[in-house]
């Protein structure tokens, strides 16, 4: 598919998504925890959008809310030109959008055989007319992810972490989805196995024309697999740009420090590297700072940052950033 054509077709549109959780504080009293606060972005057909950020920044919640595993507090999600909301659209959407989970140990039912795990989505949505059709589809899916047919009657505990993740991926492919949310799919795996699974994601995307939302905290992995990368901090999206662009020319002070903090597997670069080490921890989303959420750790913060939340704005060439100082040309 040509670059231009990709650009024309947003497959997933997220508009002003908000996801608040009520935290109870005794009887009748509760406070909203703003896990995701006013996040908008689109994912083009055939694209991989990487979503990075520290734990607690809301990246997993974004993924889950898109799939309506949580009911969004506010905002809209559009898939292929249709707004997801009522029962009919949701039912259709759930066949087209699936998920691969982080932990290959807890996301597979230990009492089911591999065949039954992979076929569970088929069973639920009654996607076959005969048991032969069901079996053929299972074998086809297992072949996609590099599992042998003799594995079908085994149980999950007989497999290593990498193979379990393959089972999880086969299950997510069962309904022939167009869109897959991958929530830290390789972070529980050993280094030598990670590369196998990452390559498999690449190959499946080419073969089946999949679109991914790839959530991870390992920036080198995200950069490798993604076309564009979005950075989140404390429930807000702070930067969004092409993978190469954001890695080589990050604009937001948070993205800068995040990228500089990545330990590069190269001793010479490591010795030269001037890391921007942030002080302090990510604040609790229950007590988010006023204005820009990053200002409490930002080395450049000024009065304006405390007053108002900067909008996510295109700085040219599809490089979006939410920072007052970058917009005023004081940083960049």
């Amino acid at each position, binding site marked *: 598919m040509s670059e231009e054509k990709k650009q024309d077709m947003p497959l997933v549109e997220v508009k002003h998504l908000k996801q608040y959780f009520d935290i109870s504080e005794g009887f009748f009293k509760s406070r909203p925890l703003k896990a995701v606060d006013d996040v908008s972005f689109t994912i083009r057909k055939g694209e991989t959008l990487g979503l990075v950020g520290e734990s607690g920044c809301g990246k997993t919640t974004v993924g889950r809310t898109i799939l309506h595993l949580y009911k969004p507090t506010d905002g809209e999600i559009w898939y292929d030109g249709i707004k997801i909301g009522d029962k009919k659209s949701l039912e259709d959407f759930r066949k087209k959008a699936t998920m691969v989970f982080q932990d290959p140990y807890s996301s597979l039912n230990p009492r089911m055989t591999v065949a039954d795990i992979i076929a569970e989505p088929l069973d639920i949505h009654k996607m076959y007319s005969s048991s032969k059709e069901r079996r053929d589809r299972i074998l086809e899916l297992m072949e996609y992810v590099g599992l042998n047919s003799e594995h079908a009657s085994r149980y999950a505990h007989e497999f290593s972490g990498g193979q379990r993740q393959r089972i999880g991926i086969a299950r997510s492919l069962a309904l022939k989805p167009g869109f897959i949310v991958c929530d830290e799919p390789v972070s529980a795996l050993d280094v*030598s196995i990670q*590369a196998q699974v990452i390559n498999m994601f690449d190959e499946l995307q080419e073969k089946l024309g999949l679109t991914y939302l790839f959530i991870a905290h390992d920036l*080198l992995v995200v950069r490798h697999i993604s076309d564009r990368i979005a950075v989140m901090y404390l429930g807000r999206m702070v930067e969004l740009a092409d993978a190469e662009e954001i890695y080589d020319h990050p604009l937001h002070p948070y993205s800068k420090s995040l990228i500089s*903090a*990545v*330990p*590069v597997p*190269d001793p010479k670069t*490591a010795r030269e590297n001037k890391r921007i080490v*942030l002080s302090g921890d990510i604040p609790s989303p229950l007590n988010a700072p006023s204005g820009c959420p990053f200002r409490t750790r930002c080395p450049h913060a000024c009065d304006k940052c405390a007053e108002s939340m900067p909008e996510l704005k295109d700085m040219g060439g599809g490089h979006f950033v939410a920072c007052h100082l970058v917009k005023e040309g004081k940083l960049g």
Partner: protein
Amino acid sequence: MSMLEVRDLHTSFFTDAGEVKAVNGVSFFLDEGKVLGIVGESGSGKSVTAYSIMQILAGSGKIVSGSIKFRGQELVDSGEKVMKTIRGNKISIIFQDPMTSLNPTYTIGHQLMEAILLHTDRNKDQARERAVEMLRLVNVNEPEKRMNQYPYEFSGGMRQRVMIAMALACEPDILIADEPTTALDVTIQAQILELMKSLQKELGMAIIMITHDLGVVAQMCDEVIVMYAGAICEQGSADEIFYNPCHEYTKGLLRSIPTADGGKEKLKPITGTPIDLLNMPKGCAFAPRCDAAMRICLKEKCERMQINDMHAAACWMNVKKNMEGGEA
């Protein structure tokens, strides 16, 4: 004489399924003030090596043979009494998971003071003073107030700082860090690594850094040991390991990770699955997954060979290369 000398260490776990040889003939020396990295996948024996040094193996684990000498003193079979003078005092360890390594029912101060009272002659007031000083050293804000708080009031990065403070309270000669930043976010990881580096310079201790992250190794280590299936497959200075890897496993590892300047070209993964320690192959443990494996690799283990002063590896490919070089 090196400060710590480990010679031909064998540690096994005796399970119902049989003897699991978790560490299988590991030897290395650690000099004063050096940072030694041990890298490997889960099950490679890197943590068990560290636990063997501290002799804190789980119930079924036992040092079968070998020698561990700290400043000339043999630690294997030295008895619990001797080990108590070593642990926490001369050699300290910090663990991977800062969430579970602190006792949730005691204050941070209590736990910090416990180590100091146990190993030094300080009285309670002096121990408290020392604990506050240690918290300040690891950049914990308002240390006096923090002393009276409980672990749940600390974030992951803060807890790992407390663990480091505790490990360093008695000024150990060696700090063993078992995946100290794996559970932390990158920006917090950067803080902790930076802190460990500056403390190491300030206090002059040696660090054994156990990790699976080659990036962390590149940042921190002078020397690197690469482990696979309980044995050392390659050992050398950080530069030698990264720029002149001489074992097929190390080469595979380096090829399989995305690099900072790498573009979109495909990663070259190591094929196959990690080894089953109950079912060890006869020859080189890595041979079943090795693309370059030759007939001899399947039959016979390769002995460790010196590549140069800074570098040793146990791979038949080096023998082959030498022979070809000799003929030409």
